[in-house]
C-alpha cells in the first residue's frame, strides 16, 4: 500500500505533474511530509495540497472490515477457524483452537527444555492431511543451530499417528513436505527470509519455524542500538510475512540471566526495598522488551522443582495458565489439560529450578525418554 504510485491515483493532471516534477512518486514519500512542507515544496496553495493529500491517504489506506466480517471470513476460509491445533488439548482450548494464523508465536525457555521438540511436532502437524487435523501443507524450518533431527521427527510421527505413518510411502511424503534451511550467518538468514517471501506466494507453505531467533541475531553484531535496529527490521519483515500469507510463524527464543540494571519499575513507583532476585536463578527472555512487544503469543517453557511447565505468558485471548508437560516418544504431552491459573507477574518469570535433574536423568522413575543414550 505504501508503494502505490502517485500517477495512478487519479489526481488532477496538474497536481500529478507537480508531484512528479519534485520526484515524489510513491505514497510513502508524499505522506512523509507535512501539509505545510508539501505546500512549500510543490509551490501550490493549501487547498490543493489538502485535497491531494486526502486523495492519496484514501488510496494508500488499506480497506476496512467489520469485526464480524473478519470472524466470518476466518471461519469460512481457514482451517480450524484460523488455528493450527497442537494436539495438546488444554493448550488448544486456551488458545481458542491452536497456534493462530497471521501472527508470531514465540517459544522461550532455558536450553534443553523442549522448544525444538515442540517445533518438530508442530512441523509434523502442519504437514498432515486435514482429515487428521493438519494443514496439509509444506513447512519451512529455519534451523540455525542445527538441532533438527529428521529421525526424531519420524519417530514422533510414528508414535503419534501410527495408522498414517505405517502406510506405505506416507512417512516419505510427510517428511518431504518439510524444508529445512540452515543459514550460517545473519545475511544468509535475511536472504532466506526473502526467498520465503517468494515461496509463500507460489507454494502451499502453511507454517514457518525459526529455531532460534536469538542465535541468528546475536551472532555477528554487538549489543545496543545497532542490534535493536537490525532486529527491528527482521521483526517487521517476519510479521508482515505472517500477516499477508495468513500462516502461523513460530519463533524460538533463548534466555539470559537478569542483570541488576534491568528496568522493572516506572519513575512514579515506590522503589521496593526488598531484593527482587530470589535464590533460584532468575531468568528473562533474550532479545529485549521491544521484541516482547512484537510477538503476539508468548509460550514460556520452564522447569520448576523438576517438573516442566508450559505457560501462556502473553496471549490476547487466554487466561494466564500453566500446564505441566513431559517429553515423550510422541513428542510433548500435557500431564493435565486444565492447567493452573497463575496470578500476576508470575506468569512472566522463567524458572530453571531442578532443570538439570530433568535432562540428565537416567530413566529411573520418570516418564519414558525417547531413546537418548546416557
Amino acid at each position, binding site marked *: 500500500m505504501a508503494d502505490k504510485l502517485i500517477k495512478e491515483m487519479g489526481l488532477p493532471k496538474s497536481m500529478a505533474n507537480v508531484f512528479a516534477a519534485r520526484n515524489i512518486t510513491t505514497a510513502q514519500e508524499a505522506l512523509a511530509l507535512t501539509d505545510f512542507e508539501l505546500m512549500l515544496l510543490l509551490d501550490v496553495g493549501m487547498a490543493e495540497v489538502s485535497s491531494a493529500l486526502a486523495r492519496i491517504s484514501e488510496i494508500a489506506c488499506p480497506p476496512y472490515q467489520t469485526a464480524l466480517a473478519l470472524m466470518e471470513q476466518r471461519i469460512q476460509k481457514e482451517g480450524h477457524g484460523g488455528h493450527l491445533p497442537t494436539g495438546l488439548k488444554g493448550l488448544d482450548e486456551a488458545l481458542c483452537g491452536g497456534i493462530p494464523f497471521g501472527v508470531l508465536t514465540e517459544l522461550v525457555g532455558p536450553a534443553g527444555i523442549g522448544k525444538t521438540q515442540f517445533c518438530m511436532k508442530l512441523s509434523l502437524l502442519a504437514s498432515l492431511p486435514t482429515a487428521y487435523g493438519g494443514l496439509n501443507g509444506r513447512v519451512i524450518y529455519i534451523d540455525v543451530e542445527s538441532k533438527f533431527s529428521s529421525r526424531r521427527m519420524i519417530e514422533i510421527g510414528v508414535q503419534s499417528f501410527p495408522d498414517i505413518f505405517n502406510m506405505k510411502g506416507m512417512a516419505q511424503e510427510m517428511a518431504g513436505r518439510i524444508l529445512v534451511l540452515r543459514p550460517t550467518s545473519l545475511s544468509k538468514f535475511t536472504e532466506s527470509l526473502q526467498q520465503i517471501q517468494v515461496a509463500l506466494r507460489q507454494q502451499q507453505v502453511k507454517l514457518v519455524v525459526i529455531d532460534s531467533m536469538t542465535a541468528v541475531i546475536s551472532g555477528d553484531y554487538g549489543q545496543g542500538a545497532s542490534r535493536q535496529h537490525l532486529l527491528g527490521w527482521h521483526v517487521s519483515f517476519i510479521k508482515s510475512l505472517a500477516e499477508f500469507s495468513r500462516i502461523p510463524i513460530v519463533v524460538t527464543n533463548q534466555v539470559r540471566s537478569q542483570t541488576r540494571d534491568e528496568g522493572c519499575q516506572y519513575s512514579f513507583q515506590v522503589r521496593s526495598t526488598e531484593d527482587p532476585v530470589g535464590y533460584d536463578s532468575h531468568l528473562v527472555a533474550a532479545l529485549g522488551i521491544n521484541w516482547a512487544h512484537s510477538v*503476539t503469543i508468548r509460550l514460556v517453557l520452564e522447569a520448576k522443582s523438576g517438573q516442566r511447565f508450559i505457560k501462556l505468558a502473553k496471549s490476547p485471548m487466554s487466561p494466564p495458565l500453566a500446564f505441566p508437560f513431559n517429553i515423550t516418544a510422541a513428542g510433548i504431552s500435557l500431564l493435565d489439560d486444565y492447567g493452573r491459573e497463575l496470578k500476576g507477574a508470575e506468569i512472566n518469570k522463567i524458572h530453571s529450578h531442578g532443570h538439570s535433574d530433568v535432562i540428565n536423568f537416567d530413566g529411573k522413575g520418570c516418564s519414558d525418554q525417547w531413546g537418548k543414550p546416557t
Partner: protein
Amino acid sequence: MEVGRLPISASQRGKLIRAGYTTLSSLSSLSPSDLARELNVTNSEALEILKVASLNSRLDRTDGGHAIFNGAQTAWDMLHEEQLLRRITTSCADLDNILGGGINCKEVTEIGGVPGIGKTQLGIQLAVNVQIPVDLGGLGGKAVYIDTEGSFMVERALQIAEASVLDMVEYNDLLRKEHRKCQVNLKPNDLLESIYYFRICSYTEQMAVISYLDKFISAHKDVKIVIVDSVTFHFRQDFEDLALRTRLLSGMALKLMNLAKTYNLAVVIFNQVTTKYMEGSFQLALALGDSWSHSCTNRVILYWNGDDRYAFIDKSPSLRSASAPFSVTGKGIRNSASNHKRIKLM
C-alpha cells in the same frame, strides 16, 4: 450556547447530541432537509428545531462576546458541554473512578504498559462498551479499531461481546423492574458488526489511515471512539531518521486531536514501553520519546504492582494523579477481585 438548554423535547435533544450537534453554532449552517436526514425525523420537526435554535442563538448574541471570534467558546459553555457528554466506561468501577467516569470524548488518551499487561484487552473492551445503548447509560456509538500489530483477536472480541450483552441484560433487568419498557435487543454479533477494523502494516499506512479517518467518520457519524493499537510499533522498528519520526508523530497527534474535537469522539492510543536511564538507574518509560509525551491530552500507565494490575494517571489537565487496580478476566476488563474474593470465602 449549547443544545442542552434548548426548549425542545428530550428525545429530540438526545437525537441531536447523538448526531454530534452539541452547540447552536453547529446547527446554524444546516438546512432542514439535511438535519431531518441526520436525525431521522420529519422535515417539519427539523424545521421546528432549527427555528428554536436560531431564536435562542439570536438572544444569545446580544449579550455574548463570542460573535467576534469564529469557533471560540466561553469557558462556561465548555463546562456545560462537558457535563452533557457521556464518558465511555471501562467496565471496571475503580478505573472509571480515577478517570472521572470513564474515557472522555473530545480528548486523546494515551495508555501505555509492558507487554501482556492488558492494553489490547482494554482496547477491545472500550470498542464494545462504546456501543452500550443510550438508555442504559452508554453512548450507543460505533468503534474504529486500528490494529498495527495484529494483536486484535476476533475470538477474544466475541468473548468480550458475549459477556457484555449478558451484563447489559442483567443491568436492564435490575433497572427497570416495574417498567419493562426497553429490551436489550443487541446480540454479540451485532456488537462485532459495529467495530470497523483496519489492519495497518507500515508507518505510511498509519499516516494514511489517520488522514483518511476524517472522510470516513464524516460518512459514519455514529463512530464515537477511535482506538489505535499501538501507535508505536511501526515507528520503532527501523526508523533511521529520528527527526522525521518526531515530525510525523506530532503531525499525527494533531490530526487525532482534530478528529476528537471535530466529531466529538474519544481517541485512545496505545503505546509501548522502553527502558531509560534516569536518576542513576534504568527505569521503565513509555516509548517514542520526550516530545511525544507532550502530544496527548491524558496519559495513563498500566503496570504490575505485586500480583495485581494497576492503572496510574500520569498526566491529565483535569484528573488527579491516582492509581486504581483492575483485572483482566474471561469476560474482559473488570474490577480487581482480590478484596472481594476473600470476603466471599469467609
